[in-house]
């Protein structure tokens, strides 16, 4: 502000109203104010820079020394009480907004576009791959119709190995004629371990989401068609301890920072040592509840150090390279997180289910 403006303010103080007169006029005007716009004008008139009250306050220095204190005090008191009255009036007007002629029914639904959404499996895969992505894992994918060789043999599960019983298999008929072909619907995403290592040299750090199939009866917790997320890390110097740490970090990202993990011994022909990872139940914090069936722990995935035969099969020297692999059921993770009690919902294509996610 220039000093010129100040002096012009002083000029208007030629015929000053008394504090009491200002008060009467201001309160009268405030009583009849009917909208916030009017209130704004009122504020400018009675409390603004060019208002009478401001002029009174500015002119105090020109008053006789004896009067200064009294006028100053009463003017400031008035200012405070006018501000308070304004606030009250504003509140009053706002509170009565519903009665305003052009008011809207704010409870009517807003204009919005029809909501779509990603399948919960897709959403879960995205979260899982993001969690591993943050640890340097890339995403790869592979065929759903697979050779027997990749699905089994390359993974240290030769024909007639009793472990094949763990993977009830859909076989494709030979396209040329009678009998069974050597094509199958992959029973797990693990064949991608071999496919990836055949193509690339270490270091490998990859996760593989994908559709899998098992020839088994379906019920609320078993489905013949499901998704898995496979993981593989191979390089010099990768250890079981690294596997534990990596999967712990994953569990924290997906199930919460306070999660605990537990590894127990399990057997898969393509890893050694083999493990199964569980997390402490995120619903009851390990106290035991219906979700964890009273155990306090929830099984999440199988894992282990890549079997030297698997490494040898793809031309890696197991004396030089080590690594770990893991695999988990995507629907299972989604079911745990969303409290879904029937896995068959995932492929049912029912909007009553899908629209909830």
């Amino acid at each position, binding site marked *: 502000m220039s000093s010129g403006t100040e002096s012009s303010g002083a000029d208007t103080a030629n015929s000053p109203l008394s504090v009491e007169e200002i008060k009467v006029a201001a309160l009268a005007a405030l009583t009849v104010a009917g909208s916030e716009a009017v209130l704004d004008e009122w504020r400018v008139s009675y409390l603004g820079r060019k208002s009478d009250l401001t002029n009174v306050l500015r002119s105090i220095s020109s008053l006789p020394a004896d009067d200064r204190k009294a006028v100053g005090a009463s003017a400031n008191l008035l200012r405070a009480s006018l501000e308070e009255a304004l606030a009250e009036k504003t509140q009053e007007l706002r509170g009565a907004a519903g009665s305003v002629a052009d008011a809207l029914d704010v409870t009517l639904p807003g204009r919005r576009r029809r909501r779509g959404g990603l*399948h919960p499996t897709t959403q879960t895969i995205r979260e899982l791959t993001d969690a591993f992505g943050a640890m340097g894992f890339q995403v790869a994918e592979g065929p759903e119709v697979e050779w027997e060789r990749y699905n089994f043999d390359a993974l240290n599960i030769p024909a007639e190995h009793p472990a094949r019983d763990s993977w009830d298999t859909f076989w494709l008929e030979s396209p040329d004629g009678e009998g069974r072909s050597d094509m199958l619907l992959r029973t797990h995403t693990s064949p991608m371990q071999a496919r990836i290592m055949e193509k690339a040299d270490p270091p490998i750090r990859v996760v593989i989401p994908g559709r899998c199939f098992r020839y088994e009866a379906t019920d609320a917790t078993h489905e013949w068609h499901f998704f898995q997320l496979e993981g593989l890390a191979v390089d010099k110097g990768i250890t079981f301890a690294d596997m534990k740490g990596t999967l712990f970090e994953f569990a924290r990202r997906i199930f919460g920072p306070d999660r605990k993990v537990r590894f127990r011994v399990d057997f898969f022909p393509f890893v050694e040592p083999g493990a199964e990872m569980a997390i402490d139940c995120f619903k009851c914090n390990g106290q035991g509840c219906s979700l964890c069936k009273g155990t306090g722990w929830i099984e999440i995935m199988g894992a282990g150090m890549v079997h030297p035969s698997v490494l040898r099969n793809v031309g890696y020297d197991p004396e030089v390279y080590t690594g770990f692999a893991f695999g988990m059921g995507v629907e299972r993770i989604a079911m745990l997180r969303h409290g879904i009690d029937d896995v068959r919902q995932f492929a049912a294509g029912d909007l009553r289910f899908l629209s909830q996610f």
Partner: protein
Amino acid sequence: MKAPVSWLKEYVDINEPLHEVAHRLTMAGTEVGSIDQIGAEWGPVVVGHVQAVNPHPDADRLRLVTVEYGGEDGPAEVVCGAPNVAVGQNIAYAGIGAMLNDPYRGGATKLKRSKIRGVVSNGMVCSEKELGISDEHEGILVLPDDASVGTPLMDYLGDAIFDLELTPNRPDCLGVLGVARELAAIGGTAIREPDISYPEDGPPVDSLATIRIDDPDLCARYTATVLQNLTLGPSPEWLVKRLAAQGQASISNVVDVTNYVMFEYGQPLHAFDLDAVENHAIVVRRSYAGEQLTTLDGVQRELAPDTLVIADPEKSIGLAGVMGGANSEISDSTVNVLLESATFNGTNNRITARKLGMKTEATLRFEKGLRPGLSEVALRRATKLILEVAGGTAAQGILDAYPEKDDAVVTLTDEKLLKVMGVEYPEMQVIATLEGLGMEVERVGSSYEVRPPYWRPDIAIPEDVCEEISRIVGYDEVPMTTLSGRVPTWEPSLERDLREKVRASLANHGLQEIISYPTESDSAMTAVGAPTEYSPLRLENPMAQDQPYMRTTIRASVFRAAARNARTWRGAIALFEVGAAYLYSGEGLPEERQMVVGAFNGPRDNDSWVSDTGASDFYDAKGAVEAVLEDLGIEGGFEVTDDPAFAPGRCAAITVNGKSVGVVGEATRAVLEAVDCDRTPLAAFEIDLSALGEAIGESNAPRAYQPFTRYPSSVRDLALLVDTGVSAGAIRDVIAKNRLSQQIDVVDVYSGKGVPVGKKSLAVRVHYQSDTKTLTAKEIEKAEAAILKILGQELGAELRS
């Protein structure tokens, strides 16, 4: 596999709570699925003594039994229908309030005082089935004479059984002793080995029988002995009980021992009637072409080539490791037995079992590959027990054909152990742990020379030993470290990126993603216009018999989902699926071409005061495609086309850079019927993602910034009258050619009242704008006139007055 705690305790001390023991077994790899408590729920069931049995006054088949059971009010009188109840027996007496299994309906029920044919029954005399011990319900359970009357039956018969879920690498735990060894190793306690010594009172064994292995590739070891002058008969109660807990019926004392040792050690054995074996000579050989054998179950079986048989010089007498032959079966008249304990090839055994459809307790174990060392121990154990339960004498020595000695040694270096586990285990700990597992360990320099025990077939490589050490010490003891070291170089994944963008775009545009089974019926695929140049691959064992094919189109799945939802969902139905069409071209794996199909049916939006709830149609499907293309930053075109799934005149090809990448349209009546959709129209689109990816090609670069003009635009509306056959696209193209037209929107299409028949009215809003100056009214009029002139000449369009 069931491991009764009472049986385990024979070999190892169990002092901790059972759930704790089960937990430790599970953590170390032998998963305890459940602990079945037998007797915990029985309540007032005690050992009773039958004092009197009298006829029931009103029922021939019922009797009144007086039972002394140590109760304060003296003996109880109960009504009993069992034929075998007799004075002097010790029995299981259930008082009022006992929880017993209902033998007919199943489930536990509480015993009430009741009147049976007019006589009050104060409790019950129980069968095994009622107690949940076995399925036996022919008669009551008779307890031994030394059972003390009044003792709670729980103390006498109660048990806990670990129901184990074993992994296929641990056939040793298919024997109770193997599980006990696990417990001992985990707990660091000692194992009490079963007694395998017996008096060898008979003649030298090689004077009684001979054995010969003709095919050592299928039989690594064959041990046998001869027992003479046996007394065949029923087994003692302890033996019957242990077998019953395994679900194995008692057959005879000799056969029961072979089964018992199998459940104890995991080694299947077989007993032949020695006198049925020609020349007392055993030959282990492959079957002859066309050879047949009638097995113990009375079935005559054709033996495939490579079936291993046990034979004498004249005939086969057993299917090796699967089932014995009927011709050498132990019978009541058997007195001399040749006892076999052999190591058959696991793979061959499994093939034979599969071909013959004969999964037996024996094949369950043999198929996993047993160690030759086990056969001799099991043979001696069984010999000892047979002498105990059937008398007789055992021959001196054993017959042992063992062509190639199995002496597995695994070398684990300190370096390897550290490299695999990432943790250093002290030498003392390694040695103690491995020895606790029954391994012989020798420290040689910085290595451990490890000889796994005869019961463990799964220790073959250093990594196996790493697991043994770490699992017994505990996986919990391994620290957690994060991955250090190299991160792989990034590899582009254009297909996946494109697919995920399309997914997100469709979801944002209000479509819900679905995932369907990828199998399909032939008729549905034909109905929705699957590509005819590929014949679909067929599953040998489809889950649904009417959908045996791997789908070559995903249309049917999505259309069906829309139709199904129409019956259950009140609002808008707008679905899409991304999935593979499996296209087999005659060799290799099928191409899994990623397709996107969207379907719309019923109201466009959910009911609301502001929503448009008209039926979705072609333009909804097209709009979704346009949104996807716009999100991808590419321009697409739509051209009239034909597709068997879509009604003629309501179908367009989607083109990108001149290449067809998909189709949009409204389904034909025939399609609606095929997918059971009763609401029209069913509007849909299909995008071939690999075609789209190819069409986009290099243009998939980030969008280039276009500078926008600073000069204002002017808007003019054109109300045009054209023949109905003239497309909006054609008009648009003409206007777009004028260099001042910047944006063209068709804002209204109308035909009907006020418009001549055969004509339609189109309102087009054109924004005129220049990059270099503000346009004058005159310049705009000039441009508009030029446009109208060409529209008139080329399309016969005239301005509507």
